């Protein structure tokens, strides 16, 4: 009953084997590595539930502003220079897969993660695109000035995860943003309970401290204990119900965070060996990725790392090769290696993406403009099959030519990997049952 939709025209891979042929081989059991995941994916789509959690946590690195697909993970070396840009392609640890020269760290471990090259949607604004990617809902506002979070109505992916999976067992909150709130990372109508706990500080700074978690100046441990003792004494005999009871549990969690050495340590990125910190890069994105790993270890379910600065309209290449790509490349590679070394990669899904890609043609100011039609998403761990390129774009990296992936597909895939039923509904404030994700299918071939 399973059937695969084949492209009308057989496309050839670089070694001359047609896709149609590959599939036939696969069906005959000769290429299980290729066909099995696809069949599983088809099953996953077909089954009404099939909800097995592959990952326990997700680290979601958001390259805010729109990373250029063709200058990073989807190079087009055969395109004219005004398309391909100045960066040279390099080979990777996976034969046949190429990145650009500034993704050298990831190139070395290309066999440990998978690139989806065919993510595509049609919202070309920053705030609106971010909203769309994080919530799966079309924003009702125009791009411009917005409060953060922008998702006033619909919950973001992180809030969905927080609501569905709850605490991971430790003291740390289930949903954390850093080093500032994600543009569309809010809880929407789920309410403050599912809002991210935001670390509004840069973990690469020497004075890095988590808001409201530090030792208060001038408050001795003795006074701290006295305060807590008095508070406990007052609250002991009071009956609490409803929200007040919930607030009590948050108070005890907050108290644990302030006082429990284990919880405080989770936030203390300085405890990491200097060598490892350097592996991640002493950058905002690098140390955020490292801190994200610590928080996942401590039980956090969804860490959203917001890495801004990718909106490169003018003279983009110096900043891409100087400030943007190498830190992201380094952070992602180090995170994957580190998770793997600790045996956490299977249970931790790592995603790196932005709200859009960038225009195929370099503009008159030597920059690239907004282009949401073609984007790359990096997936590692969490039950995904590594070493693949999924989907493809045309020769200008302008539009998907194979397996186009929608925002709904992305959200459904992340939910499913975390064992969340993405079709579960909650009533919105108007009383309408709203599914976590409207539709969406598993990204084909992504499952291990």
């Amino acid at each position, binding site marked *: 009953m399973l059937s695969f939709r084949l492209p009308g025209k057989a496309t050839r891979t670089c070694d001359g084997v047609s896709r149609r042929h590959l599939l036939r081989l696969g069906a005959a059991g000769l290429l299980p590595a290729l066909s099995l995941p696809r069949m599983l994916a088809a099953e996953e789509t*077909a*089954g*009404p*539930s099939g909800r097995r959690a592959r990952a326990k946590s997700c680290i979601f690195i958001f390259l805010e502003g729109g990373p250029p697909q063709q200058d990073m993970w989807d190079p087009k070396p055969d395109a004219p220079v005004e398309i391909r840009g100045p960066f040279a392609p390099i080979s990777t640890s996976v034969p046949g897969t190429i990145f650009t020269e500034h993704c050298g760290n990831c190139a070395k471990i290309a066999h440990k993660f998978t690139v989806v090259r065919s993510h595509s949607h049609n919202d070309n604004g920053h705030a609106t695109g971010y909203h769309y990617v994080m919530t799966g809902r079309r924003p009702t506002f125009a791009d*411009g*000035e917005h409060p953060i979070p922008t998702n*006033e109505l619909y919950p973001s992916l992180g809030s969905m995860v927080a609501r569905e999976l709850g605490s991971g067992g430790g003291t740390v*909150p289930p949903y954390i943003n850093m080093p500032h*709130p994600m543009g569309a990372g809010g*809880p929407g*109508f789920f*309410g*403050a*309970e599912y*809002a991210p*706990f*935001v670390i509004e500080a840069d973990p690469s700074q020497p004075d890095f401290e988590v*808001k*409201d*978690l*530090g030792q*208060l*100046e001038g408050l*001795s*441990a*003795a*006074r701290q*204990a*006295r*305060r807590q*003792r*008095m*508070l406990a*004494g*007052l*609250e002991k*005999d009071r*009956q*609490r*119900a*409803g*929200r*007040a009871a*919930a*607030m009590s549990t*948050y*108070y005890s*969690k*907050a*108290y644990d965070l*302030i006082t429990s050495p284990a919880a405080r340590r989770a936030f203390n990125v300085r405890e990491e060996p200097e060598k490892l910190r350097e592996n991640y890069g002493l950058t905002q994105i690098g140390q955020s990725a490292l801190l994200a790993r610590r928080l996942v270890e401590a039980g956090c379910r969804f860490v959203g790392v917001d890495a801004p600065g990718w909106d490169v309209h003018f003279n983009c290449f110096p900043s891409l090769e100087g400030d943007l790509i190498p830190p992201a490349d380094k952070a992602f590679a180090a995170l994957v290696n580190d998770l793997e070394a600790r045996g956490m990669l299977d249970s931790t899904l790592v995603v790196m993406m932005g709200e859009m890609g960038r225009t195929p043609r370099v503009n008159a100011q030597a920059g690239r403009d907004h282009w949401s039609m073609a984007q790359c998403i990096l997936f590692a761990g969490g039950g995904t099959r590594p070493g693949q390129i999924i989907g493809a774009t045309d020769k200008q990296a302008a539009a998907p030519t194979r397996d186009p992936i929608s925002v709904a597909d992305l959200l459904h895939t992340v939910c499913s990997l975390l064992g969340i039923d993405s079709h579960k*509904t909650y009533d919105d*404030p*108007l*009383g*309408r*049952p*709203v599914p976590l994700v*409207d*539709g969406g299918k598993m990204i084909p071939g992504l499952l291990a």
Partner: protein
Amino acid sequence: MFVMHTSRGFLSCFLTLVGGVLAAGVVFGQGWEVSPASILMDRPESSQQVLVTQLDGATRRDATRDAKYAIGSPNVARVDAAGRVTPLADGTTELIIELAGVTRRIPLTVAQFSNPVPVSFAHEVIPVLTKSRCNSGGCHGKAEGQAGFKLSLFGFDAAADYEAIVRAGRGRRIMLASPERSLLLAKGAALVPHGGGLKLDADSPGHRRLARWIAAGAPRESADERAVVSIEVEPREVVIAAEGVQQLRVTAIDAKGERRCVTAESDFVSNAPFVADVDAGGLVRASDVPGDTAVLVRYQGHVAVARFVLPRTAVAAVRLPERNFIDRLVWDKLAKMGLPPSPVSDDATFLRRVYLDVIGTLPTADEARRFLDDPAPGKRERLIGELLERPEYASYWAMKWSNLLRADKVKVTPQATVGLTRWLRRQFAMNRPYDQMVRDIFTAQGPIQNESPAAFFKAVDQPELASRSVSQLFLGVRIECAQCHHHPSERWGQDDYAGLVGFFTGVGTKKLPDGGEAIIAKTGSDAKHPRSGEIVPARVLGGLAADFTGERDRRRVLAAWATAPDNPFFAKAIANRLWAHYFGRGLVEPIDDLRATNPATNEPLLAALEAHLREVKFDLKAFTRTLLSSSVYQLSSETHAGNQDDRQHFSHASPKALPAEVLLDAVCQTTGVPEKFNGWPLGVRAVEVWDNRMPSYFFRIFGRPVRATVCECERSNEPSIAQALHLMNSPEINAKITHRVGLARQWADSPRTADQLIEEVYLAVLARRPRPGELEIARQAFAVAPASQVGAAETGVVQTGVVQTGVAETSVATPDASRMRREAVEDILWTLLNSKEFLYVH
């Protein structure tokens, strides 16, 4: 399809009962009854729900599942244990019901089984899709459909659905030659992979009916004689026991007056599932939580309601003093529910509650002391009157209404936000009658930066947005649903929506020479039906086409209708909104969703409040005074075993979270350190900050509304860990507590005794004096060396090193001693600011 001959059916049923009673010689009202009196099923897929009710005096108990059923000729029909009869072959027989040793028989006829009339697409196919949720909002019913197959939401557009099923997708969804292999059926029965899984079992009547329709050539009839004109649900009013059950029956009545049982095809929703929930077959199961609920029944765009009351039993009614009609009606309801009210709260609780509710401000320690120590009778009424005259009343209510009227500085400009806020503050300060105030809002025009409500029409700058915002906010009708589809639980359809839009089509904006903008009223035009594109004459909700003779601004006609004495929505909506503010929960919830299918938990009370509001001519202060003077408002929030589960009937006060702005002001007032808002003069209170976009960590984590909707629900009062951390351990709050000119420092530097200091902090933060045990705990702070207490047993009582309490400490000499005293006050202040009592209105 079965036909119940209403009058004759009722009569024969009655006679049966009387006969039974006479024969058995028992008291009238004992025994049991069954309905309907006869069954006719004239479709192969029909079914008939039988209801059996046991009578015991005035009590009626559902015994549908206790009775034993049999069919005289089992080849004609089948009956299951739940009393549902389905046809098997043409013929006449009887249904035999046996309960408590008594047997009754009902004539049963199956007709047109082997040679049925053709299936109607609109009236018989669509209900199957609706019941199976194929056309629900999460599936093919959503705007973009699902996997290429798009149906109209809840099947309100038969023409489009016919097109989608029969013609779209190159006709691949149905296979006339082999109906069972139609994609429509194969997907529904999950015989081929289906994203939605199994929705319509291959054995089900619905599946068989779809197959029969396809086999007949998938016709689309034009005659409408089978259109359902109304539905009925039985029973409509039920007093149900804890853990009890009740089977519902739904009957559809068509244009010819024929009745058929559609229980199996209807949708059921309980609006308070924690009291009683309902399953897909119409079986209601009560919980053990006393309360009441309405079960909404939906079939083919028609709605009906069955109301359930689950009283607590064996409870003697308690009626507290009646200060006004509110008390009478609430005590009536509580007596009916078996819920004894909590006692009236003490003065301190009332004091704090009424301050926070009316003016969003805590009483100061002095104000608290004055009130608590005032022995004069009637001080509560006096306080209510005083608070309503305070300037903070106007500021607080202006803030609330700025949120609702969407005074968003990005959308309407900062100047216009100020203009609207000022206008609102003036309305509340002068106690403008609500109907006049709203008339001004409805018809606002002129420069938006002026002190006027004109900015509202800049915030809701499309006729569609304006109409649904006005409808939800001022009429309590969520017509928004009807923009895209017929309202799923109301009579409103897309034509009602378009009719309302027609009042706002003349609203425009004009650029002014000074760079500002003005709202202008042009001649409007009727709006288009969102689906058909036909012009729908402007009309008020539930009314006829509006007459605009002599009116240039169409909104004036709407305003006149809304504020007219006989408007069914306007007064009720604001009465419920104000009730919800003061009592923590609307009589109708959500507060802006008033409809027949969402009844108030105390309808006589809502009606009386509505009448009272008209009586006082929409004087909001007078109305508020009535609310607050009632014993009900002044009840304690402490519950007892008899009413702790009550969430709907106001047998006790419900704690309410302090809104973000009020909480911040309360922290500032009790620490004596105002918040410095960036760009604002020092001393401005959070409640007064009109800038809805002002970056503030506090506002963000405590859920200040961003003014994106006209819904009160935009304000999030849910607790979070970030809130707890911030109050407990933030440098910002700590800086206020320890500020060198803050109240803690002032108190500590005063010649008060330790106990006097403790009392001062209690009065300032909690508006009450400490209880003995609390005093004991707070005295710990005055221990000589806090360090010595580390590791001490947490008994709550410190044995050693306590400064002599109760004795005037005039000899605070050493810098060390004065520092310790200061720290003690700071720590007590911290403790009370972090108590749950501080965070909630009790």
